[in-house]
């Protein structure tokens, strides 16, 4: 688990130092998840990138798509990444997704000092209504830095798998077995 993470940072830093890829990456965390039908899947939208660290993130206007046959928007919550004083998160439903927008009222310097290069923006809760795997994607986004200048954004995708209730149980049992085996191995 360590190596991939370390490698990721090296690669990311290399990209920055080369000056070839400014902006931010929008991604879903977790990138993929499974949820039993009738339950809520919780997915966070993160903005990652040193541009955010250095220039700050002052506003976002993000549209997310998912398969409306499998998932239904339930609620959203701002993660207060834009400071204490904002317009507040405004979410509107799209044909097959949602749009989330928020603008910070914080002063640029305050905002930059407040933020890091890895920000949780919004947490979405989606209700699983039918089995299958729904892709999660960003259909569009406008990110503004602390001064209101555009930050270029690239998008990572994600997915949510809706499993039937029995399947979910099986997965759970498998997980328990694996956990049990691991603990036994450590004791030995």
């Amino acid at each position, binding site marked *: 688990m360590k190596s991939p993470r370390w490698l990721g940072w090296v690669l990311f830093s290399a990209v920055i130092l080369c000056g070839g890829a400014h902006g931010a990456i929008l991604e879903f965390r977790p990138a993929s998840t499974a949820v039993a039908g009738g339950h809520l899947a919780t997915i966070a939208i993160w903005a990652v990138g040193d541009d955010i*660290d*250095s220039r700050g993130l002052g506003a976002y*206007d993000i549209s997310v798509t998912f398969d409306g046959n499998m998932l239904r928007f339930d609620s959203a919550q701002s993660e207060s990444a834009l400071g204490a004083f904002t317009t507040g998160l405004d979410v509107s439903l799209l044909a097959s997704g949602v749009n989330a927008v928020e603008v910070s*009222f*914080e002063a640029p310097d305050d905002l930059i000092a407040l933020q890091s290069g890895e920000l949780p923006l919004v947490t979405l809760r989606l209700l699983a209504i039918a089995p299958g795997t729904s892709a999660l994607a960003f259909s569009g986004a406008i990110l*503004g830095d602390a001064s209101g200048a555009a930050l270029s954004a690239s998008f990572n995708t994600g997915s949510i798998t809706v499993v039937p209730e029995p399947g979910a149980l099986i997965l759970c049992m498998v997980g328990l077995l694996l956990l049990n085996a691991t603990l036994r191995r450590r004791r030995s």
Partner: protein
Amino acid sequence: MNTMRLVSKPLLACAALCFGSIQLAAGAACDVNDDGAIDRADVTAITLARNSIATMPVDDRDADGDHQITVLDARICATRCSLPNCAVAGLPPSSAVIGVGGGAVGLPDGARIDIPPGALGGATTISIKEIPLPVGAALPTGARLAGKIYELGPTGQTFQIPVRLTVPLVTPAGFAAGDGSIYRIESDGSLHMVGDASQDPIEAESAGQAFDPATGRLSVHLSGFSAYGAIAVKHAANFADVVLASANGTATVTVRRPATGGLRATKPGYNAATHKVNCATQLNLVTRATTGNSVQAIVIHSTNSTNSGRTIDGELGWATDNCNLFLAHYYIDKDGLIYQVADDGSVTNHIGDGSNTGAQPSLGIVNGNAVGIELLNNVGEPYDGRQITSLVRLADYLSEAHGLARPVRDPATGLYARNRQSIANGGERVITHNDYNGKCDPVGFLRSVGRYFPLTAAQGCATPSQTIAGADPNAPALLDAVYDALGMLDRDRQHTGVVNTSGGDSYGTEAPGDGGNVRFRVDRTVVGNAVGLVVPLSSTANAPLIVGPGTPRSNLSGTQTFSDVIIAGTLEVTGNLELRLVGTFYLAPGGRIVLRQNGNGGRLTVYSRGTPIIQGLIDARGEDGAAANGVGGAGGAVDFLLAAPGPLLVPTVISRGGDSDVANPTPPAGGTHGGRGGNVTIETADSPLFVGGGVGLRINDLDLPPIRSGTIPITLPLAPRHVGDFLPPPPPFTLTSLGVTRPVADQRVPLVKSFLQPGFSRGLLTTGGMGGAGSGGAGALNGGAGGDGGNITFTLTPNARVAFRDADLITGAEVETVVYRFFLPESGLAENIVFPVSGSLGGVGTGTGATRGGDGGPGGKAGNILRTGGSIVPAPARFADLYPVRGFVAGLRLHDSDSGATGNTALGSVKEATSATGQKLYRLRISTSGALIGGLGGIAGGKAVAGQFPGAIGAQGAGGSLGGLPFQ
């Protein structure tokens, strides 16, 4: 992660510079709601409009100028916010150390204190906190808390520059936002409305109480700290109407005074919110008597509130605060109701003592000798016409009550001087606060022609050059109109106006015009349907029509709705005009309404809630020979429909039919009939009517154009004589006219026809016109018939009272005086015989084939004069005596013994009714039978030579009936 930040920040800052694209568009103000500040409301508005195309050429929402509205614009604007964190209000800390540079403290609910730079001399901990209503500060009946109470600390802190307190207003049910005001709550529990400490300390208006409907917050300037809160007040149940009358009873106005509470005698303070509250420093008003002053001027103010919803309650709350001597004497609400909160004899603070003007020359007008009138007017609103009318009436009363000179236009320039010198010289006695010291008071249109005086932030007037789209550039300044009305108002209300709906005379053989009908009718239903009895039906009902002297106004016709009509100049109407008035109709003595269309008179219809005052001329005559062929124009009509009039001064009505071509010395053909007189109908409710007038206007005062042209003035050698039943055939005679003697065989000339009826000065006249003369020749034609008179009808309710004074009620055919000179066989002497006739002359038989002259035309029928209901009362000396202020003399009624109707009455004689004191009340032309006589037939044509005979004398017209008058 921290390492990454340290490493990457400088580099990325460079990247931001490289890639950042903040190119702010010039003029992209971000102040989307134009409230003068960039705050979260603007940012939110941009956010909501995101992902749309910006409007061209400049869109305040397009901060980066890329012609698209995005969250980037919202964020850019957020960085430009006027206050930290884009605060609108309420976000500063509740307590902060604030120094010379100023700052703000606030609470999450929006309450806040903004302290400008320089207000504090040094660092001071300023705080704001919510507290319960202090013990002992229980709100009196009629008042409700409209928010929270806040304690501002440190208590007792004072400021070198006023600070601004803003609090949220929570309007209680049943109240309007404009009822709410910020009050100071003293430690003793007393409540005092806060004025505006930042501006003129002498404020009779609560202009400092500002309300922002967008945020729902009240604000006001303070010079010191205490506890404050928003309180809403209502006054309605505590006022009662009182009629004020000048000493001679000639000017009256209805005002509302507190029915309870401590108003007037010594204390200015009354309202439901404050009258129970003890004020530690309660002050009494000084009376003018103690200062040796009298009322010498009237000063007009407007309340100038920036609270668009400000109500009269708020202003009265300010005016009547027990601890606040800043008030005017009168406040006029938008609906025209006048509230009096101080006696004229009390000195109030509404302009100052003269020390704060600095302008020269000194006007000599100060609080000590001036009465103040406040017009409720929130900044940016038009004045309501009902206010202007009430202002006229109130200023009229005050001018009369205190003997103030009336405004006069300079005869050379036609303008009112209204400058400091003319005021200082004792000229205008009605001035504005602006005249006094230059303050922008009153604001708006009151002081200029089509120009709006806006209020600047410093409460001064901006340059008065801002014209309003759609404003009539020729409209008089409202103040000029008020001046005009004041100058034209007839003090004694004795002037009787004139309504003229006569038909025009005809030329040649064409028909003359008939007179039009005139009606005054009380019909609440009809008036209610037209204008509404409670709530005006028209949105334009708050606009007055004020026509001042000078250039006639001529762009009005059709149906028009106004609050009131005040006409002191000339209104020319092409066609018909229907006026729907929420208030009333006032035609000053110099005022005229002229209605014409294609030679005919136009129709004037007035729906009015009030009682019309008609002292000028309503001219709806048909023109003489209006059409090319000589047809006389038809008279128009005048119809007043009234909701509930007070005492009505009935104007003189002239509705005669036009004459056929009687003045033509050589009639072209047989004469046609005269025009018919119109009907005069008065149907009223239980109100006094006054017909006539003691020293009122006479018709000739109106400088009317001659009703008939082409008459031949001839001095009668003898006094007129009446004609008996039998007239001998005319012998040969000659006629002397203007020094020329003509043989009678050639022509008989109608002599001077008196102007209307001889001696008629005022009253109601509905005579028919003269018939045309027959033409001469072998087949001499008969004269035309005289026109019939119209009817005069009073239909009164039982309690209505009618007073006639020096009034003529005349119907019947018009009478022309004709003179024959003939030999009396007995004496062989020639004598002039004077004939009053209605039907015209028969044609003269001439030529060899003539066997006889034409017959005289028959006289016209007299109309009826009828009064039903009501009663006739002695004529008072003045119309004003009819007003309830003084009432009628109890128990007096007109008796037959007062009428003077004794002895035989000769045909054609005039019968007068006089009162016991010798006053002429009214007169009628009357026959011995008690009926009105019809016009006499015309004189026969022909000449008395052998073989030829004169024509027959025309038959007398039928008599009319007379009913309801004392001596019938």
